[in-house]
């Protein structure tokens, strides 16, 4: 048992005969004190996710974590060490390690050390805590919604343009695909962080279920009315032997990202003022426009009729699709690996459905995923920054970019990586893998489709999840959910604006 202390006689009659069990007052008082330290704890250790660790573990972690992460490796070789924190698991983590190995073998001066830091939110928090303790890693992978926070981080980061200027290493932004580049650039086109794993939202569908419902398995629903018709056809056949494990017509991972943020982008609807926040910290949310309300009411209606299964937040519904329970699943294009590995049915990847009456000429969807930020510490040397710049240059070479794209399901971030994948014949061998690229490259980028640059966007997404969950239980309408999302989200934006002194 993980008790901090042993029994104290003040436990009164309760502790009679129990002095040996290790349960008692000390244990209890450590419960109390632990709660006090949350905020400062997040700063003082590198593992803030495990908030309520037992005291002993806490002690060990506080002492050990910074050293393991940054200094632990110094003694081992005379090479320059570059520490790279990332948030990838499974097949994607293997690819991160492969990239580091390939770089380490390609030259003899520097050594990149990838370290897994937990989920995206944990990694961001850990990076911030580490910087405040002057223990920041050289490179950190930050998800796209953290971009606003990182841009406001000033001296904590060294933006790509700055790094290129100081080290003399050529890091040309023009090699990156515009839809990806735009998300991580300043207003004047200078690159802030290095585009890394980028995905976009797509629709997956179960071809076997389409066949069983009498639909054409080769033709994905292209519009929302076709999607609803398909969902109804599937619902009519649920429970029949041909339909197998299918229990729900439609589900969606990342509901807010896919059904609201992407929906707004491809239909060229504003999500926030000031070009979705790109032009100023004083942006205000606009996602409660009439078209978005219609979209939300439609999803709520579909849920009520049993056509749409909510499933949960973020990636939780992924499993509903690849386990065969949902016939149509929206999600990130990066989910491809999991679907390949787990599904026991024929499936296809398709463009997001559109509403032709809202916009007959849909434009590009926006990216998700993450980018790499260079971080600073007081004692970091020029040679170290140079090694970082060389690593960033290395992973942007066509071979590395194409390999990363083909093994993970993320899109290639450079033109050359895309061309190389084409030349490799990858898209013929794996039909559908070019869907995300086509969707990202569709039409001309507008202020509404460049991306979202809002501080604390992850929190705004959570607010929308909360309001939507209330609406799904029938406690409020779609309009109320989005209206509440706007008013609560605006408060978060103002708080962020104040906190960064904007």
């Amino acid at each position, binding site marked *: *048992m993980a008790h901090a202390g042993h029994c104290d006689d*003040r*436990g*009164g*009659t*309760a502790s*009679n*005969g*129990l002095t040996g*069990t290790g*349960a008692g007052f000390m244990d*209890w008082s450590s*419960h*109390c*004190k*632990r*709660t*006090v*330290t*949350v*905020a*400062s*704890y*997040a*700063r*003082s250790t590198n593992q*803030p*996710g495990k*908030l*309520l660790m037992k*005291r002993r573990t*806490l*002690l060990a972690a*506080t002492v050990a974590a910074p050293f393991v992460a940054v200094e632990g490796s110094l003694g081992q070789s005379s090479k320059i060490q570059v520490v790279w924190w990332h948030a990838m698991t499974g097949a994607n983590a293997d690819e991160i390690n492969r990239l580091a190995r390939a770089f380490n073998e390609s030259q003899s001066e520097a050594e990149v050390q990838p370290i897994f830091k937990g989920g995206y*939110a944990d990694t*961001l*928090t850990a990076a*911030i805590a580490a*910087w*405040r303790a002057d223990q920041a890693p050289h490179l950190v992978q930050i998800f796209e919604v953290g971009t606003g*926070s990182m841009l*406001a981080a*000033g*001296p904590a980061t060294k933006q790509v343009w700055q790094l290129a200027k100081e080290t003399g290493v050529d890091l040309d932004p023009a090699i990156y695909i515009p839809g990806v580049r735009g998300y991580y650039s300043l207003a004047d086109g200078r690159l802030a962080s290095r585009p890394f794993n980028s995905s976009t939202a797509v629709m997956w569908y179960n071809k076997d279920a389409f066949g069983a419902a009498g639909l054409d398995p080769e033709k994905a629903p292209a519009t929302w009315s076709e999607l609803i018709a398909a969902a109804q056809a599937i619902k009519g056949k649920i429970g029949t032997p041909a339909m197998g494990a299918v*229990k729900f017509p439609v589900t969606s991972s990342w509901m807010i990202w896919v059904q609201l943020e992407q929906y707004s982008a491809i239909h060229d609807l504003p999500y926030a003022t000031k070009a979705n926040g790109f032009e100023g910290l004083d942006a205000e949310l606009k996602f409660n426009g009439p078209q978005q309300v219609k979209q939300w009411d439609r999803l709520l209606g579909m849920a009520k009729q049993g056509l749409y299964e*909510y499933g*949960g*937040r973020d990636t939780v519904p992924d499993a509903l699709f690849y386990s065969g*329970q949902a016939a149509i699943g929206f999600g990130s294009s990066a989910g491809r690996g999991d679907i390949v590995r787990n599904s026991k049915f024929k499936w296809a990847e398709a463009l997001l459905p559109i509403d032709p009456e809202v916009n007959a000429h849909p434009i590009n969807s926006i990216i998700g995923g993450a980018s790499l930020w260079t971080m600073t510490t007081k004692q970091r040397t020029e040679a170290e920054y140079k090694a970082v710049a060389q690593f960033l240059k290395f992973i942007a070479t066509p071979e590395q970019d194409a390999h990363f794209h083909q093994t993970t399901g993320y899109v290639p971030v450079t033109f050359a990586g895309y061309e190389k994948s084409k030349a490799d014949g990858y898209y013929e061998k794996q039909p559908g893998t070019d869907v995300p690229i086509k969707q990202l490259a569709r039409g001309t980028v507008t202020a509404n489709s460049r991306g979202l640059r809002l501080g604390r966007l*992850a*929190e705004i997404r*959570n607010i929308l999840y909360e309001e939507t*969950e*209330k609406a799904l*239980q029938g*406690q409020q309408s779609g309009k109320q959910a989005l209206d509440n999302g706007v008013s609560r989200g605006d408060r*978060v934006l103002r708080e962020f604006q*104040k*906190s*960064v002194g904007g």
Partner: protein
Amino acid sequence: MERRTIFGQRLLPVVLVAPQFLLTLIFFLWPACQAIWSSLTRQDPFGLHSQFAGLDNFVELFTDPLYRASIGRTVFFMAAVSALSMSLALFLAVFADREIRGRTIYRTLLIWPYAIAPAMAAVLWIVLLQPQVGILGAWLSRHGIAWDYHLNDAQAMLMIVLACAWKQVSYNFIFFLAGLQSIPRTVLEAARMDGARGWHRFRTITFPLLAPTSFFLLVVNLVYAAFDTFGTIQALTQGGPGKATETLVVKVYRDGVVNLDIGSSSAQSVVLMIGVIGLTALQFRFLGRRQLT
């Protein structure tokens, strides 16, 4: 009876106490002071801009209806968890106190859940209650009961109460069992001779004699439910659906670690700290006095 160790000189006791004192200072008092300071400031995540905000963070907290709702939710949750885990533990302890075969094994088994990490306990409950794949959850769904704690406030609350109470039963069980065993047999014998039996004997003799144990456990359980359930709740529901299972400590984590709003999160920590100090004072006051008499 009071036992007292007498030290011949000053140095030795100071040296003996120093490690614990240092640990407390570095890991509890110092961070606590930092939390109090942070609660009075408004700062960005990186700490680049920090301005003194006075009591702004506290004013914003208590004028926020969502925070007030979270207080109410936490009080309800604490009461439900304490009541459920204590009554269940008492029930089990009364039966384990009897002369039954293999009771050592039986008692040991009852203590096991306490050794399970909160996240693992949550996974066990998910395996049981997940609407599609959970053994019990799928059974309920098949039998026409719309069980889905992802989308039902009451069911989500029920689930975290069950999981958190279950985890605390062992702890309460140990104390109740010890409490029962410390009741003098002679008193019970006398009651039996006077013809008090079964429920009547329990209600008039056993239960009153267990009162100090019960009170101690009540405070411990309230504190447990308020603070130590974070791991279980985070793993089960992350505070959702909506805000249905967002207790105060989950909110501290949400605002501080996920949303990086250090000022508000620190203010919430300070509010919690005051709550704990209150409960502790209550405990010491009552149990301390009881022992003096």
